[in-house]
């Protein structure tokens, strides 16, 4: 197996609230590794801490504690203090391409910035390189002089992807890159992303709440619930035998059309209630308030990660050895 590129170790992020001893525990001690060339899906509801994790990997937030190690280098520091080589190697595609592209700059200028900052090509080859980047995401060179407002949502996201690719990164963080787009263009964006991943051998940390999307693209999937990872497994394993009751609940909520898919799907489990507040986290297992199989024990003790099958980890009392 390829080497570990990104190692996230006991990562925590607590945001202070107005009350002194109360914290929003957005990310509460998670462990995750991403191998070279691997697509890892980080799935969870709103408020599960998946975006906070992405922002810590990017360096927009400094972690409260824990470590992020990228190619052997500790990068659990704010982006400002990171060396340029790290910035070059980790890039992000934001959720909403409407706000991630400067409305006053042309596509050419937007793509030129990373090239210039990292001295990717000499100035005279700048235009050719920009055209090549546009070509990589399937846009013609005419886009160079266009402003983002004249583009559609899908085209904007393609430009954002091209910008992220400009520095030739080895890890791309994708923060729900399709959720702000029309369904009609989502598939195109996903296809572009996956083709590029194969061509360039990048690793993806793919943040999403769309389980059905993950089935098709991810190598491994991690499920987050209230700041903790509750289940990690290879994608194939994951959909065949989901272990955690929360995962089963998520999977049963995917609408399916084909009969074959119907059989794969766990029995419908009605989701009960909303995700609790990360300020006031339930005692014991965080999921016990919504879990159909919760026992008394679940309220008392927090479960730890156990490897149930090969490389299939789950954090649930039901699978205690």
């Amino acid at each position, binding site marked *: 197996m390829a080497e570990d590129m990104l190692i996230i170790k006991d990562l925590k992020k607590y945001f202070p609230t107005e009350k002194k001893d109360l914290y929003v525990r957005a990310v509460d001690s998670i462990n995750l590794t991403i191998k070279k060339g691997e697509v890892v899906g980080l799935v969870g509801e709103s408020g599960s801490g998946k975006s906070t994790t992405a922002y810590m990997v*990017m*360096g*927009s937030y400094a972690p409260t504690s824990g470590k992020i190690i990228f190619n052997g280098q500790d990068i659990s520091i704010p*982006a*400002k203090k990171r060396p*340029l080589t790290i*910035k*070059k190697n980790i*890039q*992000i595609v*934001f959720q*909403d391409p409407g*706000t*991630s*592209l*400067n*409305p*006053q*700059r042309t596509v050419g200028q937007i793509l030129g*910035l*990373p090239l210039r*900052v*990292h001295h990717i090509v000499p100035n005279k080859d700048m235009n050719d390189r920009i055209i090549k980047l546009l070509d990589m995401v399937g846009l013609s060179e*005419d886009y160079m*002089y*266009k*402003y983002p407002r004249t583009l559609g949502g899908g085209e904007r996201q393609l430009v*954002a992807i091209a*910008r992220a690719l400009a*520095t030739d990164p080895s890890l791309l963080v994708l923060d729900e890159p399709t959720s702000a787009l029309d369904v009609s263009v989502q598939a195109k964006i996903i296809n572009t992303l996956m083709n590029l991943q194969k061509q360039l051998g990048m690793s993806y940390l793919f943040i999403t709440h769309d389980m059905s999307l993950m089935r098709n693209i991810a190598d491994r999937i991690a499920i987050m619930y209230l700041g903790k990872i509750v289940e990690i497994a290879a994608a194939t394993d994951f959909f065949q035998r989901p272990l955690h009751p929360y995962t089963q609940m998520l999977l049963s909520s995917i609408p399916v059309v084909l009969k074959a898919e119907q059989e794969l799907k766990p029995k419908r489990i009605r989701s009960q209630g909303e995700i609790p507040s990360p300020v006031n986290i339930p005692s014991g297992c965080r999921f016990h308030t919504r879990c159909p199989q919760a026992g008394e024990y679940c309220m008392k003790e927090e479960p730890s990660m156990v490897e149930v099958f090969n490389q299939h980890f789950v954090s649930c009392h039901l699978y205690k050895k």
Partner: protein
Amino acid sequence: MISIKTKKTNKKWAAKLDGLCRSWYKFSRNKLSVFGLIIVLTVIFIALFADKIAPFPEHAGAFVDLGNAGRPPGEGYLFGTDQYGRDILSRIFFSFRGAIIMGIGVLAVAVPVGVFLGLIAGYFQGSLIEPLIMRTVDIFLALPPLVLALAVSAVLRPTLFNSMMAVSFAWWAWYTRLSYGMASSIRNEFYIQSAELIGASRLHILLREILPNCLGPIFTKMTLDMGWVILIGASLSFVGMGEQPPKPALGTMVADGAKYIPHMWWLAVFPALAIMIIVLGFNLLGDGIRDMLSTEEV
């Protein structure tokens, strides 16, 4: 190779031209702002070519023709003559020069300084420099600009240049506050975050990413302020702290003419009307530019 290049530049220019046409369409929808533009262009034209189009260019300086002194508006002298027999119209034409120089000069100093300080304060929020700049701005904004300009002019020699400096000194803080407000909201946009994550320099982020998004309101304020600055400049020259006689200045002409009201009313009324028209022109133009630059779709 050359043909490819021309094709590219053509596309670039076509996009620009398209943008210009759109802007003009938005601007011209409001007839009043077109009227404002016409006034402003006329005033600038007159200021540039005052010595060609004024009926008596020599009346702009120290000129005495007591035989024609105090003529009412009418034949030969459209706006009448002053107590020394100088043509009021010619003197108004020449005084436009000082007024326009005043407006442009003040904005040329106050806007770059004010905007840059505002961008710094807005972007580096939470650092020490923000309260340092913004509290200074508060002090400046607490004083009426005319009072501040008067105070500064009082210690300087009364010249056009010094009155420009005085008004600039009183004016920059408004631009700092304006750009501070915009920069502090723009800094949270994802495209700023993206530039930071790419590793762009702070100067790049301030001037290339944030500044272009602030230009709309800044231009609007500049056009509106041209009128105000000219008004303050006229006020300064009204109390004798601007351009010195015998050179014509609108404020001085009104001040001198006021002594002869009511029987020689034209001495004060026409320069006063000229001030009003300039200020009106710039205000209407400013409104039009604001409408043009607003992101609201047509």
